[in-house]
C-alpha cells in the first residue's frame, strides 16, 4: 500500500474516534473548548509517534510475554516527560485538562496502534495518520461544544450577550449526545453502519 493511501486511511476512512471508536474518553471528556482539544490531540499524536518508533525498534529484543509492560513503560516515561514540560509552558492548560494528560497512557488509539507488528516506515506513517485523524476529530468536537456552550470558537466571540448558552454542551452527558450524533453523521456520509467489526 502506498504511503499516501495509508496516511489518508488513518485520517479519514479509519478515523480513530468516528470509525474505530477508540480514544472516546478524551473525545468526550476533554473537549470543552477548542484550544484544549487541539493541545491534547497534538500531545497524543506526538506521544504516539515517538512511542511507535521506540516500540518498533525495541520489540525484537524483548520476549513476547512482556510486550504489554514494555508499551506501558515507554508510554509512562513519555507522558510524564510531556506533563512536566506542559506544566512549565502553560500551567493553566494543564489544570484545565486535569486527568486527561495522564490518561494518554491508556489511550485506546495508542495501545491499538502499538499492538500491531509493523516495519519502521509503516509504523511511522500509520502513527502520523492516526495522530492527525485523532487531533482533527477532537478539534471538531471541541469547536462544536465551545460554540454551543459559550458562543465562541478558539476564544473568538461569535455570539454576543443575547445568546443564552446551551449549558448541557459543557457537561459529560451532553458531550456523549454530541459525539454520538457526529458519529452518526460520519456514518451517513460514508453510507455505513456504526457497528464495531474487529
Amino acid at each position: 500500500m502506498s504511503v499516501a493511501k495509508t496516511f489518508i486511511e488513518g485520517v479519514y476512512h479509519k478515523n480513530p474516534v468516528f470509525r474505530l471508536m477508540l480514544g472516546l474518553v478524551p473525545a468526550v471528556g476533554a473537549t470543552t473548548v477548542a484550544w484544549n482539544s487541539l493541545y491534547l490531540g497534538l500531545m497524543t499524536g506526538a506521544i504516539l509517534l515517538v512511542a511507535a518508533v521506540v516500540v518498533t525498534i525495541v520489540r525484537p529484543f524483548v520476549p513476547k510475554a512482556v510486550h504489554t509492560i514494555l508499551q506501558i513503560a515507554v508510554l509512562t516515561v513519555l507522558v510524564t516527560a510531556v506533563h512536566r514540560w506542559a506544566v512549565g509552558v502553560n500551567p493553566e492548560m494543564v489544570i484545565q485538562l486535569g486527568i486527561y494528560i495522564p490518561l494518554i497512557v491508556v489511550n485506546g488509539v495508542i495501545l491499538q496502534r502499538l499492538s500491531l507488528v509493523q516495519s519502521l516506515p509503516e509504523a511511522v506513517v500509520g502513527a502520523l495518520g492516526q495522530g492527525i485523524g485523532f487531533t482533527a476529530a477532537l478539534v471538531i468536537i471541541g469547536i462544536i461544544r465551545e460554540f454551543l456552550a459559550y458562543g465562541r470558537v478558539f476564544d473568538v466571540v461569535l455570539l454576543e450577550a443575547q445568546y443564552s448558552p446551551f449549558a448541557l454542551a459543557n457537561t459529560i452527558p451532553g458531550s456523549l449526545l454530541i459525539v454520538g450524533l457526529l458519529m452518526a453523521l460520519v456514518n451517513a456520509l460514508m453510507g455505513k453502519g456504526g457497528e464495531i467489526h474487529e
Partner: protein
Amino acid sequence: MSEGLGALAQGVIQNNLIFMQGLGLYALTRWTKSLDTAVRAGAAVLAALFTAAVALWMIESFIFESFSLNIPFVIVVALLSAMFWEKLLTNVWRPATEGTLAASLLNSVLVGSLLLMESWGAQGPATAGLGFAAGVGFALGLVVMAGIRQRLELSPVPKALRGVPILLISAGLVGMALMGFRF
C-alpha cells in the same frame, strides 16, 4: 452509617464513572453486547479498582506521605492490580473473555478513577470505600447499558445510528437523568 451510604451514593450516582465522568467508554462499547460479558467485565473492574484503591491507601499512609499527581506511581499501582486480577480471572472465565484481560482491564477506568480520588476528597480508609463505590457504579452502569442495548437490537434504528452512536446517545440520556440527583 449514613456517611458510608452517602459515599456509596456519591460513587454510584453523582460521580458515576461512565455517565458523569465519561470514563470507561471502551468498556461501554465493547463489553455490553450481552448481559453476561457486562456482568463479568463489571465484576473484574470492581475487584481491580477496590484492590488498587486499598493499595493506594496503604502505600500512602505507610510509605509515602502524598501520592498527589504522581503519574508513574498511580499507573504502576493500576497495572499491578490489573495484572493480578487478570491472572486470577482468565482461568475461570477463559471462554467468555476475548483478547487479553490485562489489556482490557487497564483501560481508562482504573487509572482515571485513581487520579480522581483526590478531587473526590479521599483520605485514609475512605479511599478504599470510594474505590468500591465507584466500582459498583461502573458495574451497574455496564449492566444497565447492556439491557438498553438488548432492547435497541429489536428496535428499528436508522442505519447510520446503529451500534455505537445510538449507544452513546442512550448513555447521554441516562447521564442527563442522573444529573437530576445532584444533592
